[in-house]
């Protein structure tokens, strides 16, 4: 009798255990959405002047920050915690592999639960988040747009602005980009490694093709101007006057057409190495003496050049920065405040700290090598000899400073990622010689129509 009871109890317990383990993935949906009251934070409208009465030490509470890169976000949060010692910060990092971070934030936004008070967005999807209703808060409640544009590099504010002109996200970085070249190769094939002279070689489409031809001829076909087509593509996309989508219609700027022409020419004469960006071969080509120039943004110095160089060559000034045909931007991370956050005051303190605090920006630039977006800090650092990068033997602030206000942030759209990918795929087939130019444009447009046909018109 006893054993029978035990057997029954054991089997019921076991099946109960198995059911609950299956349910483990459900997660706790115990708080109904109603407990997240909408902005009763009317006092949030306190202007900055009101908050200045509070010192950093006076701020208490908990701030939840969502990010997709630990190396980038952890140190930022550390700095913030140093200045605001009484604030507890919960940094939640989810890498964006296959869009995992974006999906996490999107589903959280949809359910209205577990949305971080501050969440980051990379340049590839910042426009999407900025234009999503109920995602980011209107930042003009804390500081006017004009003031923001005067204190921070304007194009970074433009990118964080939604289609109705409301600023919703700010970046602590200004990721301007230029041409990075290897000085040894420059001296060997062009008799000079002076940035201004090298810049002339890239000053126009014709010059670029001429330079490519010269390089291939003088090296007997060994040397290449660029490792892949993506380098030149980034430069050209940045030089456009119109973005991919204007008034809801797919727009192909003249610069894009010019790029298609040159890219084909460069590939045909063997001046472009057909390597795909971020592949191991592309990274390895940073060290070789075959591929001459890369598209190097401000973060490219540590993350494209330094990281791929051998120990012997690190920091020896064997690279240089030259001006691209037009100043362009690549990458960057924006931060915004969740529109229904309970901690908007604290969240604004964080964003204010990383972007508008001049001392923090200067310290951050020196510590992390990031190119910050605070204009006063940029001015200061461009005169600071300590900022001369050992990798390129130039001061990036001195170099990028003058051109940075000229970057057009209005050409970035929320569809850029998909459209540029479709364009790149079509171009790869075209450059490999498998399809002709008409087929390339047809494939590109078909892909964009299939991907985004419901949101934009494609002719």
């Amino acid at each position, binding site marked *: 009798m006893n054993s029978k009871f035990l057997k029954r109890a054991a089997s019921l317990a076991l099946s109960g255990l198995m059911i609950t383990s299956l349910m483990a993935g459900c997660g706790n949906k115990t708080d109904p959405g109603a407990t997240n009251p909408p902005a009763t934070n009317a006092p949030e409208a306190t202007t900055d002047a009101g908050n200045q009465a509070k010192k950093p030490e006076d701020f208490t509470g908990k701030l939840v920050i969502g990010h997709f890169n630990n190396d980038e976000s952890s140190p930022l949060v550390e700095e913030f915690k140093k200045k605001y010692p009484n604030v507890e910060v919960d940094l939640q990092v989810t890498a964006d592999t296959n869009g995992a971070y974006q999906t996490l934030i*999107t589903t959280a936004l949809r359910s209205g639960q577990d949305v971080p008070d501050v969440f980051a967005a990379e340049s590839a999807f910042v426009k999407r988040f900025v234009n999503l209703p109920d995602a980011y808060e209107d930042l003009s409640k804390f500081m006017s747009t004009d003031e923001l544009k005067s204190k921070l590099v304007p194009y970074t504010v433009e990118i964080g602005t939604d289609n109705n002109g409301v600023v919703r996200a700010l970046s602590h970085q200004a990721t301007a980009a230029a041409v990075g070249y290897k000085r040894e190769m420059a001296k060997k094939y062009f008799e000079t490694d002076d940035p201004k002279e090298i810049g002339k070689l890239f000053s126009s489409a014709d010059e670029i093709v001429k330079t490519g031809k010269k390089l291939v001829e003088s090296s007997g076909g060994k040397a290449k101007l660029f490792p892949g087509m993506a380098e030149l593509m980034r430069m050209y996309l940045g030089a456009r006057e119109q973005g991919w989508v204007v008034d809801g219609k797919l727009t192909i700027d003249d610069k894009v057409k010019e790029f298609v022409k040159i890219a084909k020419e460069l590939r045909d004469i063997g001046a472009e190495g057909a390597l795909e960006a971020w592949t191991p071969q592309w990274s390895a080509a940073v060290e070789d003496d075959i591929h001459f120039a890369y598209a190097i943004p401000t973060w490219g110095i540590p993350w494209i050049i330094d990281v791929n160089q051998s120990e012997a060559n690190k920091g020896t000034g064997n690279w240089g920065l030259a001006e691209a045909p037009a100043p362009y931007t690549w990458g960057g991370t924006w931060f915004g405040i969740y529109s229904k956050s309970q901690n908007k005051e604290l969240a604004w303190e964080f964003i204010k700290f990383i972007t508008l605090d001049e001392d923090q920006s200067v310290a951050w630039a020196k510590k992390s090598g990031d190119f910050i977006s605070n204009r006063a800090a940029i001015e200061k650092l461009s005169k600071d000899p300590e900022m001369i990068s050992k990798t390129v033997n130039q001061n990036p602030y001195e170099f990028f400073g003058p051109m940075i206000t000229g970057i057009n942030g209005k050409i970035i759209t929320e569809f850029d990622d998909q459209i540029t990918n479709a364009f790149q795929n079509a171009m*790869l087939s075209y450059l490999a010689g*498998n399809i002709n130019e008409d087929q390339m444009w047809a494939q590109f447009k078909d892909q964009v129509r299939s991907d985004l046909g419901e949101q934009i018109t494609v002719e």
Partner: protein
Amino acid sequence: MGRLYSLFKRLTRNDKYALYGYLFILPFFIVMSIFIIYPIFKTFYLSFTDWQGATIPPVWVGLKNYKRLFQDVLEGGIFLQSIKNTWILWICNVIPQFVGALALAVLLTDRSNKIKGKEFFRAIYYLPNLVTMASIAALFSFLLGYPNGAVNDLLIALKLRKEPFYFLQNVWATRLSVSTILTWMWFGYTMIIFMAGIKSIPEELFEAAKVDGANKWQTFKFVTLPQLKSIMTYQVVTSIIGGLSMYDIPQVLTNGTGAPQNKVTTMVMHIYRQGFTNYNLGYASAVAIGLFVHIFIVVLIALKFINRKEA
């Protein structure tokens, strides 16, 4: 509660036994309803809406997504291409896979030949099935790299080619890579299934064949093959269902692009791209329902084929 208890007491012993049976299979059905049945109905509902997956709720648009789907198929759009691709990838995989698996199964179950270490081979051939598809695909994309992947380096070193070959921009090279990976991964499993099938053939049939003077090939053709028919059709049907929902390998190999020229995009890749890369969740749901109907029809035809043969 009291009434229920008195009802319970009045059930016969057999009823109670059956009740326990239902109780124990209930967890499975609960879980299946939540994670499989409900999402299928939700997807069906979503296919009639426009939804970007974010804070704006779905908007009912009726048959718009299906109209777009039909238009795509009729005008030779990307979905039609993905149907063709999926079938080509599957056929190029299933034929070598089955031929190879059958040959090996016959060899390894044959009592008359003296291959040493049959068990060892059985285990070895099954091993590829245990590796995750995504990692193999990633490995292949390294091997086939251009201009200097392992295969290209080898071809140039052996002087078989002067210049590197752009494998991953060549339609058939990419397709055959996907099919090769699939064949390599699954032939061991198929072989084991066939081996089990052959082992279950009654010994008398083989002896009868031997007495009649049949040689190895005739034994295979007239005894083994007919007896394996049901197992083979089971394998084909499960292979079709798996093949039509092919996703990991082409996704990883082409980095989600279905390059070159969308000739390696499978149906599920298309759904993923529409739904999770472009956030066209309404249309993606419609495509998913389209895929469901496609598989349903194919399996119906396959089953009819089986039943007709068995009759």
